[in-house]
């Protein structure tokens, strides 16, 4: 992929990524969301790319490894980047 891993997003949640930016997941800031995300296959070490943020200031549409997932803002906020 030609996209560059954003380096200035250390320890910040993925909702700070702009469209097309990429990052690697470090950890989750909420245990309940973490179990749910991990069960879906979103793991520390997974590569995240923001495909789009929803209209009406809604959620995020992200690609995580091979799958695409829709997240609400507060859900995206608990995923912390490396």
């Amino acid at each position, binding site marked *: 992929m030609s996209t560059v891993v954003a380096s200035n997003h250390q320890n910040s949640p993925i909702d700070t990524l702009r469209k097309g930016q990429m990052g690697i997941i470090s950890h989750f800031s909420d*245990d*309940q*969301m*973490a*179990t*749910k*995300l*991990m*069960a*879906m*296959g979103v*793991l520390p070490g997974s590569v995240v790319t923001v*495909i*789009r943020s*929803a*209209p*009406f*200031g*809604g*959620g995020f*549409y992200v*690609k995580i*490894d*091979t*799958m*695409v*997932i*829709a*997240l*609400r803002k507060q*859900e995206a906020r608990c995923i912390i980047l490396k």
Partner: protein
Amino acid sequence: MGQERSTLKIALIGNPNCGKTSVFNRLTGLQQKVGNFPGVTVEKKAGQWNLPDGRQALLIDFPGTYSFYPTSKDEKIVVQTLANPSDDNYPDLIIYVADVVKLEKHLLLFTQIKDLGIPSVLALNMADVAEQDGIEVDTEQLAHQLDTTVISISGRTGFGIDKLSDFVVNQSANTSHTSNSVYSHTSEETTLVQNLEPNFSSFSAYQRLLLGHHYPWLPFLTQSQRGTIAKVVEDLNFKTLPAQVHETMQRYDTFTPIAQSSISRKSSKREKFTDRVDNLLTHRIFCPLLFFLLMLLVFQSIFTFASYPMDGIDFFFGYLTEQTKAILPAGWFSDLLTDGLLAGLGGVLIFIPQIAILFLLISILEEVGYMARAAFMFDRLMQAFGLNGRSIVALISGGACAIPAVMSTRTIGNWKERLITILVTPFISCSARIPVYTVLIAFAVPSNYVFGIFNLQGLAFMGLYILGIIAALGAAFVLKIILKSQDASFLMLELPEYRMPVARNVVLTVWDKVKTFTVEAGQVILVISLLLWVLSSYGPNRAMQEARTETQQIVTAQGLDQEAAADLLASRKLEASYAGHLGKFMEPAITPLGFDWKIGIALITSFAAREVFVGTMATIYSIGSTDDEFSIKNRMSEEVNPATGEKVYNTATSWSLLVFYVFAMQCMSTLAVVKRETHSWKWPTIQFFMMSGLAYVSSLIVYQWLA
């Protein structure tokens, strides 16, 4: 033979989007039954599976879930069934369906399933897609390393299904099964499992661990069992969330290398195709535009295309009624058969075209992978009103008919959001309100033009629609605050890849919806319409007798022809009937709304369906069984209140009645469907009083203000 008497129970389990439904449809075909899991409103699809050795197995399709740590009702069902060996749906065998393309993600739940101690098989679905995508799986190595049986299948093409059947036949003959787990319990978990053993000896070790995690909500536990577990958990200071995270991580660490070493993949064309399509379909501007175009198509189809088969059904029942009346001698039996039973049956079947068309389109959009994206787009907007992104489909189709709309809420996972959608959808003005609006608007608004282009009546028409939308969203907002929910609301939606729809799945969905409606809601509709028929065609004997003699006198005195005489008799009989008495009885309650007892009768009869209002008006004003809105309008405009000498249908009464019909729950079929979807009379009752209460108050305000 003794063992075979009890049917073999097989569970179909897998992650959402693993293609489980295709497998289920392939194995059971039309022999499916949709019911509910005990005590909850989670849909349970069970089907008969004819095995090659001539036996029949019961295949139960469980809701898709990612792990044994659930957050929604649907996901909880999987845990509470599989963690309880004495559950009615506890399976003898589990077929775990995994999407081979996403094997690394889908193995988590499988490794948990395997630890339960229930015989299981790993079915790698989408073998056809894997082949196209250049994905190769070494099933033997995978089977060896996971210590399980692995079978490659495709629910879409039917590949490997015979092997799966053979496995089930052999497996059920030989049930001895032990295998190793990929997860080793921590010392804390080991102690927990040991300490629970004396009280839960019939449970496997992993099932006991699940008890430790989920005892606060597991419904099958008794109060004392719950206490026992709580004590063990507290003594160990066992914290469920960190333990869940630890277990999940451990499992991934073990099976990820296994999965990776068994799979070789070239870059996937399908994925790139999905990415490209998504770029277009989820575009900020293009996406809502496309969505509304699609919804317009859906709306138009229910509205327009459905009208042809509906007219056909209408005509057919009309013909049948006519013929029956001609053949049978006139009397109560003929009336019961035609005006009661046939009318009721017609009233049920008339909805089938709309239901079939809506679900045909929705299930195609769902199969293609579009619906999940639409849900994502509207999630934020709908959240503000306590609704779900998927609610938008119900709200829009409610503009044609609330019945299929309410049935379409099945796909909303969160119960509270689904319930609110069901409760508010009937506020949206449906097509049955149109005849009522057309007749009444003429009395409420003059047919003038403003700014030379806008017809006032047209504007009023639009205003009524907007009023319905405001009521729906407003009610949703209030319900969001009132209703309690234990389940946290998540979006976290995995968006499926775009795929060609499978005709079998689409057809089965439509068939299932039509069948459910006809059989289950149909019973309620039939009973209510029979009741309404009795109310409007029977009355106290003396009153009915008087109606007949009086009509006879008038006919002789005025020399009316046969048709006019029949119309007059129908009108007088309706007045003398129980419905007429009820109308007069409730007159004091509806006078402040500007309604007289004649409107009262129409309110009662149009509970069957709103458009019946027009027909009832025709009968009351004895202009016969005409559906001609123009002649009804003319007759109504002449109606004068005998007490005041003023016109009955003045602006105030007409507006009041219009507003009443926007809000009131004047549709027994919708209530029947809501009862079916919520599995209790509680919610349709609440809905009835919420809507009709709002209608009463609003009409009161409107009439008092205008009069």
